[in-house]
């Protein structure tokens, strides 16, 4: 009983800083999707050099631990801007560095997901579209995209949950997010109630992950329903 009370109490203390987690995740989601889209275009494009660069980028990002990525961006970006562009960004809000690092991390799986979704669409439909007189854009927007979206959604959810979890490393460069806050609570209690505190932290993340999974599953259903009603 006491434990429930404690966890409830800790939840209330942690939730106010959830906005850091959400800001970081949503920003990286939007920016990472955009970069991922550009990478996808490079990867399915006709330029061999471009394809090679994109493949190399994805492979390196995939092999980089998120914490190392955050460190590299946090220490490397100011170094690059200072030495090559004579701009000092050391005074930037630290959260920007996390967002950039997570954007880079997220763009790689997004590119893979978009590419495989695109490839999963039968190209005969493209030819059929041309034969009924649609233009390239119409075919992409009306035929390819809706189908590719349905294929991509489940994997997108997984990538998004991973992004959310990687965002939990925000604290490593000194931003007070939920993880940092929970560590403060524990040290304020001189190390007491540690598992209850970190348990509360885990519960919040779990709820967020489940919510993402649920939203994506629902939109998948809605999409399929829409397609069904069209076909009838």
């Amino acid at each position, binding site marked *: 009983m006491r434990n429930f009370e404690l966890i409830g109490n800790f939840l209330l203390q942690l939730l106010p800083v959830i906005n850091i987690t959400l800001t970081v995740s949503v920003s990286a989601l939007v920016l990472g999707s955009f970069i991922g889209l550009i990478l996808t275009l490079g990867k399915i494009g006709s330029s061999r050099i471009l394809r090679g660069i994109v493949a190399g980028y994805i492979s*390196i990002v*995939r*092999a*980089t*631990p*998120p*914490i*190392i990525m955050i*460190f*590299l961006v946090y*220490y*490397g970006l100011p*170094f690059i801007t200072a*030495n090559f562009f004579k701009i000092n960004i050391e005074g930037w809000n630290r959260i920007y560095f996390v967002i950039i690092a997570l954007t880079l991390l997220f763009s790689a799986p997004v590119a893979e997901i978009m590419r495989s979704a695109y490839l999963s669409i039968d190209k005969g439909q493209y030819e059929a579209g041309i034969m009924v007189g649609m233009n390239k854009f119409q075919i992409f927007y009306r035929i390819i995209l809706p189908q590719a979206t349905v294929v991509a959604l489940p994997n997108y959810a997984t990538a998004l*949950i991973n992004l*959310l*979890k*990687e*965002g*939990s*490393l925000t604290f490593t460069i000194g931003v007070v997010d939920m*993880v940092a806050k*929970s*560590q403060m609570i*524990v040290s304020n209690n001189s*190390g007491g109630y*540690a*598992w209850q505190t*970190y*348990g509360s*932290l*885990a519960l919040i*993340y*779990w709820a*967020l*992950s*489940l919510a993402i*999974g649920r939203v994506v599953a629902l939109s998948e259903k809605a999409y399929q329903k829409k397609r069904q009603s069209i076909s009838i």
Partner: protein
Amino acid sequence: MLNTDFMLQVAKATIKGVPVTLEIVIVSLILALPISFVFALLRLYSVKGGNQFVKLYVSFIRGTPIIAQILIVYSAFPSLLASFIGKSAFAIDPINYAYIVFTINAVASLTEVFRSALQTVDRGQYEAGTMVGMTSSQIFRRIILPQALVSALPNLTNITLGLVKNSALAFIMSVKDITAIAKTEAAFNYSFLEAYLVLWVYYLIISYAAELIFKSLELYFGRYRKQVKKRHYSNKEQLISVTTDKRRSPAQG
């Protein structure tokens, strides 16, 4: 510009942590394999209670960040252990806690991998096995399992890469892995970028080496999947097998 002498120094110091990082990855993987295999079977055969437990376990572990899992285990386990074996619990080498956390973490993803791999072997081969008089356990051991393991290999590669990357957080449990050493060097000399660049290279090398090993395993064990001759009719056959599978599905329950 970058201090290359210092980078060399970090490279030399960090190399001592490579065995620790590898140990964390390999030990956790070896511990996680049998556990997750049993978990996958609990799910597949819908074992009462076990099925629900595994479902909840997988959902929780996959839905929470590894850092939260580390903090929970690292704060809860020592005192939990102390209530059994007394004060000596606090003297345990922290790498053991790393094994525990990363095993717990890997089990969740591996369970899902085994579950889907065991499902990919089509039912027809099971039926063929019964018709040549094999028992269920013979079919499982000799036909289903070998194929499931091979089809699990690509995902196993990803999980191993994930373990390598997650292991970079072992320093939080005061394990002296490559990240811990590079961090110390960085802070001591106040040259962070150089130290982390070196550390990055280490992770890239370890990851690519792991990938290479798994790729060759895939090639070796997956040789029965390789087609020597060109089969122009393979598409049609796939179509047919899909339709018959569908037709039979109600009978399979």
